[in-house]
């Protein structure tokens, strides 16, 4: 390589055209810039907005805690009761709060393969996964009976470790539709919520999860 030529051709501020190496690099960047068109900006906005809403909810909880401090100082006895009440309330809220675990997008109109995962600390027989589907979403199947289902219970065993449950759905109408699953094992109720939202050319897929302690008392 002729380094003298390369160094001569380099200048601060732009790629010089008089060097073959840099002309090629320049052309490559020009092509890249012209092809680099943004897609699915609406999906990006929707996901960001959802994430921001969660931040606001956290902030609101923090503000409630600040307000709670003077009440605590006002009466020790009353405060103890409130502490217990608020603690239980918060623990329950946390259990019910769904956490966005992932988001993705697929071509609009295409069937969507979804895999939900459950981690088990032991081998368990006869685990039931209850599926409930909104009216706008259905299982993707050649069997009409399966396509018509809006509730479904899948029974099987879980092995120790990660257990994957794949299924395929398709949207029957535009809009925002959910699939909720409920599974009870290991002393917890594990919930998953899959939200499918149609955009202009894509369907956004969000997966939320939560778990709460099963009360056996």
């Amino acid at each position: 390589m002729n380094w003298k030529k390369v160094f001569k051709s380099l200048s601060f501020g732009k790629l010089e055209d008089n060097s073959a190496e840099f002309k090629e690099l320049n052309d490559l960047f020009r092509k890249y810039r012209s092809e680099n068109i943004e897609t699915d900006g609406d999906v990006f906005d929707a996901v960001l907005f959802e994430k921001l809403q969660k931040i606001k909810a956290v902030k609101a909880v923090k503000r409630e805690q600040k307000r709670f401090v003077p009440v605590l100082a006002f009466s020790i006895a009353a405060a103890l009761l409130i502490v217990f009440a608020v603690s239980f309330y918060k623990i329950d809220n946390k259990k019910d709060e769904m956490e966005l675990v992932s988001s993705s997008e697929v071509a609009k109109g295409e069937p969507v393969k979804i895999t939900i995962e459950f981690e088990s600390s032991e081998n368990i027989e006869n685990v039931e996964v209850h599926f409930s589907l909104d009216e706008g979403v259905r299982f993707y199947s050649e069997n009409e009976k399966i396509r018509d289902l809006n509730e479904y219970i899948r029974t099987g065993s879980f092995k120790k470790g990660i257990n994957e449950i794949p299924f395929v759905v398709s949207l029957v109408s535009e809009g925002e539709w959910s699939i909720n699953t409920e599974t009870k094992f290991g002393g917890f109720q594990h919930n998953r919520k899959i939200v499918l939202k149609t955009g202009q050319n894509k369907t956004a897929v969000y997966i939320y999860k939560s778990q709460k302690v099963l009360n056996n008392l």
Partner: protein
Amino acid sequence: MNITEKELITLASKGDKRAFCDLISLHRSKLRSFAVSICGGNIHLADDILQEALIKAYIAMKNYEIRSSFTTWLWRIIKNEFINYIRDPETKIEMISDSEDNTGVTLRSDECSESEMIREDVKKEVHQLINALPVKLKMAIVLIDIQEMPYEEAARILEISLTAMKSRVFKGRKRMAEIMNEKKEMKQLSSGNLRQNGVKGDR
């Protein structure tokens, strides 16, 4: 009547999340392009890190002073988040393969036309060149050669002097030119070997 950027900034700094999203949508295209270039073309990973950075920006909005440039302020936050990611990717988000992400939602590979394949090759080549650069040079090249940002603005975002900025771009381009030439030489060598082998096989 369209709401101005300044009005959106004022609303967003008071915690209005819709105003913040509208404000970001004004910069979104460039920010996403930057993110994708830094993440070697992995759109999902780029979007995840960018959104994480934007959430930090939203939280920091209450401390933003309208006197300074919002664009520079925002880009600095984004830049810092990506530098953190590049330096320590394991603590952030797992790399996602091209075909499947952690939702388990399989992405279909549609049939590509020839022109699409060429476009993909261009993207792949640029991402490979950028990926081969050290963090500092990578940031400089993406801001100047991909984003076509003025040197002064890029220097403010990276919080370095104009001279240092120019130096980084110079080094980055030099390194990329070297890589391109190395690749060419390798191609020539391998095609030469193939020809030789071909002759051998004919005998």
